[in-house]
């Protein structure tokens, strides 16, 4: 497989070079070149809680693409598919933590949790005010009885955006934690993988899947999920996925659901818009109104084919924050068609 890089050693740093040179919303951190920070001044930096996340690279635009006003204050960029080390995340916390404190978001994967929480321990030792919020939403990774063992999946973008908007409006650290937990409790995600991504490190497909099969519930690194189904019309697949999401966390008839249809990197917008059409229809059949959708390839695994559907049953405050304006290079404008 052809990959367009200079070298394996430089690929992550070359990417960050291009990114910070291209967009005025971001710059490199002073503590370490692997930290991308918000470039534009916060109105009252002493009072704003700083939000950051560390993650392995190879999944762009998440998360460095979401650094900017009304979203993240920093992203700590690890090697390809590898969690950044605890000391690097600590540098990220040092970079942005002020008197109002910092909130480290962690998409729940083993390495990210260990390194992220260790970074918080070391930061507290240095007298910094910081807390960690684990994010998990993938219903295929553990049953509801073991909710806390679930993986982070694209539904974590609800947490990023809603907390980012709330922090911008001056919400304090404890309230942000509580809001983040509330959003997490109302979010579910299920993925359907159609084809493997190619690892930039090995040049080889990350897993094998027959041409006529879809893998339900696969994680963003190809982790196993529920099982294989034969490929057929997408309306049948989406109906099955929506039914599974609502069986895991029911939404009442007459209520609304904010929707994320996320492409994994190798699936076209033409297909993703079709998936949204069917998701909206599947919800409508149950009397649920799909609102404020986010549709596109935001959490990717190289050219992996497939998509995920995430549902959030928002309260009015969550919906308002989800639709609040933001200014990062890659987070889209979200609109509530009913507003």
């Amino acid at each position, binding site marked *: 497989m052809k990959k367009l890089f200079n070298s394996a050693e430089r690929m992550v740093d070359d990417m960050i070079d291009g990114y910070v040179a291209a967009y005025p919303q971001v710059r490199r951190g002073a503590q370490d070149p692997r930290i991308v920070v918000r470039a534009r001044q916060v109105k009252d930096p002493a009072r704003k809680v700083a939000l950051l996340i560390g993650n392995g690279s190879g999944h762009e635009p998440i998360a460095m693409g979401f650094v900017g006003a009304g979203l993240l204050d920093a992203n700590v960029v690890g090697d390809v598919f590898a969690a950044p*080390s605890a*000391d690097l995340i600590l540098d990220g916390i040092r970079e942005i933590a002020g008197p109002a404190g910092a909130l480290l978001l962690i998409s729940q994967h083993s390495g990210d949790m260990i*390194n992220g*929480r*260790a970074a918080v321990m070391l930061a507290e030792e240095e007298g910094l005010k910081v807390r960690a919020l684990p994010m998990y939403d993938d219903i295929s990774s553990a049953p509801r009885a073991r909710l806390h063992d679930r993986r982070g999946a694209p539904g974590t973008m609800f947490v990023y955006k809603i907390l980012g908007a709330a922090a911008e409006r001056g919400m304090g650290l404890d309230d942000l934690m509580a809001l983040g937990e509330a959003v997490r409790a109302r979010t579910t995600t299920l993925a359907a993988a159609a084809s493997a991504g190619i690892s930039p490190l090995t040049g080889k497909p990350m897993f094998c899947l027959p041409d006529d099969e879809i893998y339900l519930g696969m994680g963003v690194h190809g982790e196993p999920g529920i099982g294989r189904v034969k490929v057929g019309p997408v309306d049948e697949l989406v109906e099955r996925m929506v039914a599974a999401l609502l069986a895991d966390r029911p939404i009442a008839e007459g209520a609304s659901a904010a929707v994320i249809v996320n492409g994994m990197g190798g699936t076209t917008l033409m297909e993703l818009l079709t998936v949204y059409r069917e998701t909206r229809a599947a919800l409508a059949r149950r009397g649920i109104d799909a609102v404020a959708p986010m549709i596109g390839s935001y959490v990717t695994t190289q050219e992996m084919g497939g998509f995920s559907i995430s549902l959030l049953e928002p309260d009015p405050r969550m919906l308002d924050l989800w639709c609040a304006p933001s200014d990062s290079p890659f987070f889209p404008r979200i609109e509530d068609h009913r507003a």
Partner: protein
Amino acid sequence: MSAGAYFTALAARFDGLVEPLNTLDAALGDGDHGTTMRRGLVKAAAAGPGLRAKAFMRASGGASGTLFGLILHEIERHLDAGAPLADGLARAEARIRDLGHVAEGDKSMVDALAPAVRALAGRGSLPQAVTAAAAGREATRELAARRGRAQYVEGGGVGHVDPGATSVVHLLETLADIGDAS
């Protein structure tokens, strides 16, 4: 004794441990424990004061780099700033148990660290703590792993000494060898 001398001695010691530790790890995990420990320690030995454990975490990588880095962080604070070793190692042990969801008897680094911490807490000397850690390491041979990759190995790796516990003994033994009075 300075942290610089300790990390230099440790990096030299692990030069000779890469193959044995990789061999131990091959029976239980992905066979690179010696390589990742040495890679981290070489960078730590070259780093400046206060930055050695952090350099180790960065270069060693992964979750194991973080967990061993937390032990080295306490040893560095002890040697640089005179922080009590017993308290520091107890804190590292608590953090490793918490972050790794690992308990004594799970066949991990904690099986060597916990007895050493107990020995120091009971006013034992550092050499006594090393002896306790070594006994804990030997006891991992008969344990079945409950955490980490080794839990997926047939039989949980019974019959093999845990490489993480082995490395913990080397970290403490090096400290004793350079004459630290703790």
